[in-house]
């Protein structure tokens, strides 16, 4: 009791200003910690992926060693793997053309998964880039305000639909329709997954591109009209080049979305890791492979578990490369009005 009362009096002696300053500092510190959480997330992502991938490549090297000596992996568990052998297994991972991680010895060439990812992404861009760009030009330069108010949110709803629903739609609605036109199309193909993915990406591309075009200052438009150019000529010759950095950023975002898209390809593209560039074939993307393995449960510390992390790391590196290209493009072509 005595102690608390003496504390009480001490607190009362403290000036309100000091109290207030302390409180402000504490609050600021809490906010700072919260802001730091996003950095922690990144560290967490990179850390986990790297850690498990390193384990994976060492494990892989062990398997290859065992295969070359004709013994089982269990007999080699205590043997350490040299850096060179690990590097060799990384090289095999990057350049291998067969993906069968659960075989003895495991064959883990990531190329079939990379080709699947690229093909579905390209098909998607084939749909989304023209449609999204045309939509953006129309919304920014042509649409009456009333039309814009209705159409723009409607277009944005496309991005709001859960992708698992798109997957269902691709498999049970789009594929049968495509098969009428292309009888040779198998039930699961990268083509139908890619097409549906393209529709999903349209709003990402159109809304960012439109923002970029609308931020082009009006005097450029007026100058162009003054020389007698039509709206269309103005849009193509003046607005597009001026907004090119924003538009390329929109394309990059579209590409990232397509590379990282999972459920549509997991459901509709077939699960076969084929090294092919033909969209009519079934294929497996990196994301779809991760889903396939995780669908059962991934048991901690198994080669499977490590495999999905290595694939995930590859995926992350790919999206990062595109992001860096995007930043560079935006910087390089930034118009100074």
């Amino acid at each position, binding site marked *: 009791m005595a102690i608390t009362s003496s504390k009480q009096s001490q607190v009362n002696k403290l000036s309100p200003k000091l109290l207030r300053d302390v409180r402000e500092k504490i*609050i*600021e510190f*809490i*906010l*700072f910690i*919260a*802001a*730091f959480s*996003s*950095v922690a*997330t*990144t560290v*967490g*992502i990179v850390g*986990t*992926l790297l*850690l*498990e991938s390193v384990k994976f490549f060492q494990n892989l090297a062990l398997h290859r060693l065992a295969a070359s000596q004709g013994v089982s992996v269990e007999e080699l568990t205590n043997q350490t793997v040299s850096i060179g052998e690990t590097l060799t297994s990384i090289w095999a991972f990057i350049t291998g053309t067969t993906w069968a991680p659960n075989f003895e010895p495991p064959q883990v060439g990531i190329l079939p998964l990379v080709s699947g990812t690229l093909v579905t992404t390209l098909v998607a861009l084939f749909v989304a880039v*023209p449609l999204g760009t045309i*939509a953006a*030009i*129309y*919304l920014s330069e*042509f649409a009456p305000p009333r039309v814009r108010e209705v*159409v723009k*949110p*409607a*277009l*944005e*709803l*496309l991005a*709001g*639909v*859960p*992708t*698992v*629903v*798109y*997957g*269902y*739609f691709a498999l*049970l*609605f789009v594929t049968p329709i495509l098969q009428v036109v292309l009888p040779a199309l198998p039930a699961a193909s990268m083509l139908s997954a890619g097409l549906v993915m393209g529709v999903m990406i349209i*709003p990402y591309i159109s809304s960012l591109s439109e923002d970029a075009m609308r931020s082009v200052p009006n005097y450029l438009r007026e100058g162009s009209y003054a020389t007698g150019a*039509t*709206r*269309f*000529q103005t849009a193509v010759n003046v607005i597009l080049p001026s907004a090119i950095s924003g538009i390329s950023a929109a394309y990059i975002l579209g590409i990232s979305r397509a*590379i990282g898209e999972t459920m549509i390809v*997991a*459901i509709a593209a077939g699960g076969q890791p084929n090294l092919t560039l033909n969209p009519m074939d079934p294929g497996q993307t990196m994301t779809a492979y*991760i*889903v396939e393995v*995780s669908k059962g449960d*991934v048991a901690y510390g198994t080669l499977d578990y490590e495999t*999905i992390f290595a694939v995930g790391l590859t*995926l*992350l590196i790919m*999206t*990062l490369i595109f992001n860096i290209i995007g930043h560079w493009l935006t910087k390089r072509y930034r118009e100074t009005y």
Partner: protein
Amino acid sequence: MTSQQNIQKIRQTIARNKRSDFIFSIIGLSSMVFAILVLALLILDLAMDGLPRLDWQFFTSFASTDANQAGVLAAWVGSLLVMLVTAASAIPIGIASGIYLEEYARKNWFTDLIEINVANLAAVPSIIYGMLGLGVFVYTFKLGQSIASAGFTLALLILPVVIVATREALRAIPSNIREAAYACGASKWQTTWDHVLKYSFGTILTGIIVALSRAIGETAPLIVVGAVAFIAFLPDSLLSQYTVMPIQMYRWTDVPDPEFQANAAAAGLVLVVMTLAMNAIAIYLRYQLRKNITW
């Protein structure tokens, strides 16, 4: 004569130009109509396949080996609980980060780092977040394949969205509001909490709604952190196993039986209606706010 011809020429050019403008308008409009038509078709397709299955029983029964008895009870309760955890963790942290970056942070390399970082996190594929959740929440923190793991994983996923929404909302508040508050002797936090945050709350809310609608439909990361294949009970704590709507739908899509595919369509219809309704609410809110802003 020549002037006559010139005028003729000019008129023709103008007519041609007008025509090309008109043609492009048509192309532009039809490209958008096509995209929106696809969305309409998708909803129609789901409704055709799934509506007959949508009844009270569908929402109140568990998954089953018999398609006609199967329902989404465990899935929607699971979705609800996961969302609760996600909202409770992502919203305070996201808003706090936004406030720090917009109101408190001094311009230095560190805040630059955080900014670049948030921008990059938004582009990271969602399945990667699932792997982070698997490594960190499921195994390192030993939360197992539970509602808590799922909720935290999705919270990390939508954090960048909440941060960006908060920052944009705060940026829209004119600085004279802040100055007025300081002039009355308010501290920084009082200004932020009582004025800046209060006036921007509506805008932040729309961002949060959009983020949550994204989290509700997210499937891939939750497959990685392990929602189970068959579950026929309601979770009773944040550590129990669970399933969620999109995963239930995915499992049913996988079953070759058309009856189960009808179930998948019904679950999909519920999902689409839910996410689109959330998006519509956000759009409406944004519209109302824009209309009523009077500084």
